[in-house]
């Protein structure tokens, strides 16, 4: 092996890597929040009595869960691009990841809602709450607790998936790393450093989720 390790370029580029990390974190959080909300709506749509809503939700969930995330991203970028709908890379990545997350979260929510006894909804309704009030104040807080762990897994997964962004020209952490590597040819050093940064982001997110859970689920 005659590869000579040279870490200076990595240290020099550290500010750029950190800046790109912020893009990664930002895209992850926005995609998660949208994906979470959309997943909840998909769950209600799929269990509703309106067939068109059921159909729409089923197609979404099926496609999101049974096709590669990369193809979903390419579809939003190049598929839509081909018919003249050109979307900014940043927004494309958010759309694709939110689309993907929503599909998975809808399934996760299905399990979560099943875990809450129907009598909880009944007793909330018997107090005069509307369906929406009963869901918001009684059922969903319990569902959130039930799906917390699969949900955090999904969120970490989304954060890692943002690396696909480099394939549509987004300078998030992977895109930035690729760019820096092509400038310096320090492949090992840059990819290793980036792997460590991803690891740290994931650990930080897990810590954050644990703190939120601790705050949110007291007494349970």
């Amino acid at each position, binding site marked *: 092996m005659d590869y000579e390790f040279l870490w200076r370029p990595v240290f020099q580029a550290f500010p750029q890597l950190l800046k790109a990390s912020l893009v990664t974190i930002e895209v992850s959080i926005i995609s998660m929040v949208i994906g979470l909300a959309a997943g909840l709506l998909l769950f209600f749509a799929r269990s509703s009595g309106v067939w068109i809503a059921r159909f729409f939700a089923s197609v979404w969930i099926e496609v999101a869960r049974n096709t590669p995330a990369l193809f979903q991203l390419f579809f939003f970028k190049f598929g839509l691009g081909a018919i003249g709908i050109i979307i900014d890379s940043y927004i494309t990545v958010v759309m694709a990841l939110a689309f993907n997350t929503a599909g998975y979260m809808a399934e996760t929510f299905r399990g979560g809602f099943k875990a809450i006894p129907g009598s909880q909804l*009944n007793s909330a309704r*018997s*107090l*005069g709450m509307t369906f929406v009030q009963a869901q918001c104040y009684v059922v969903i807080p319990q569902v959130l607790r039930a799906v917390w762990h699969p949900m955090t897994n999904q969120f970490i997964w989304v954060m890692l998936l943002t690396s696909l962004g480099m394939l549509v020209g987004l300078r998030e952490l992977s895109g930035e790393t690729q760019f820096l590597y092509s400038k310096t040819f320090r492949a090992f050093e840059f990819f290793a450093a980036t792997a460590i940064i991803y690891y740290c982001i994931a650990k930080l997110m897990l810590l954050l989720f644990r703190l939120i859970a601790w705050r949110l689920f007291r007494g349970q």
Partner: protein
Amino acid sequence: MIEIKNLKKSFDELQVLKGIDLTVNNGEVLSVIGSSGSGKSTLLYCINALEPIDSGSILVDGIGVHDKSTDVNKLRQKIGMVFQQFNMFPHLTAQENVALAPRKVKKMSKKDAMDLAARQLEHVGLGQKLNSYPSALSGGQQQRVAIARALAMEPSYMLFDEVTSALDPELVGEVEDTMRMLAKEGMTMILVTHEINFARDVSDRIAFFHEGRMEEINSPDQLINHPTSEHTVKFLSNVR
């Protein structure tokens, strides 16, 4: 007053209520007894519009529970209900459990609702447990919170659906005492129960249900000591 006329209700093929006629007057305590599957719990669910009905009518203070024009959310505020399963909301403390509906449904301020909740919990003997989560309460205490929660909406009627049947035997007494206290205070109540002795003590009338029909309704003494229907006789001899 609750007036039920020729009420029929099916679940798919199975008809569980086969034409019930029943009137419950204000201030009255009516117990409904009968074996499992006789339709007693379904009757309560229908009164609170938690189950749709096939035909007939239920009027509460003259308002048709199942009329399309009726605002069920408003109507349900008049009718408190406590269920067999412990239904405290597990993510809220006892006080928050009781305060939730007054806040969200009656739009009370948080402070007023919490004060009201504290008073109601005091009333059922749980003044010490305001900040306890359900996981830290016994089944009997949870059922009393559920009663306080229903009372906080100031209902005119209370429906109890076998509220002691999921309890350990030593916890039944405290919940029954709470219901006794309500009966004394003049609350109009319908209670579905398996506890014949309790029903005899607390009720003005007892109705016996058998396979979706009301076989017999009478004063506790008459129904228990001098039943007229052979089904009632058989049921009573089985439970004693």
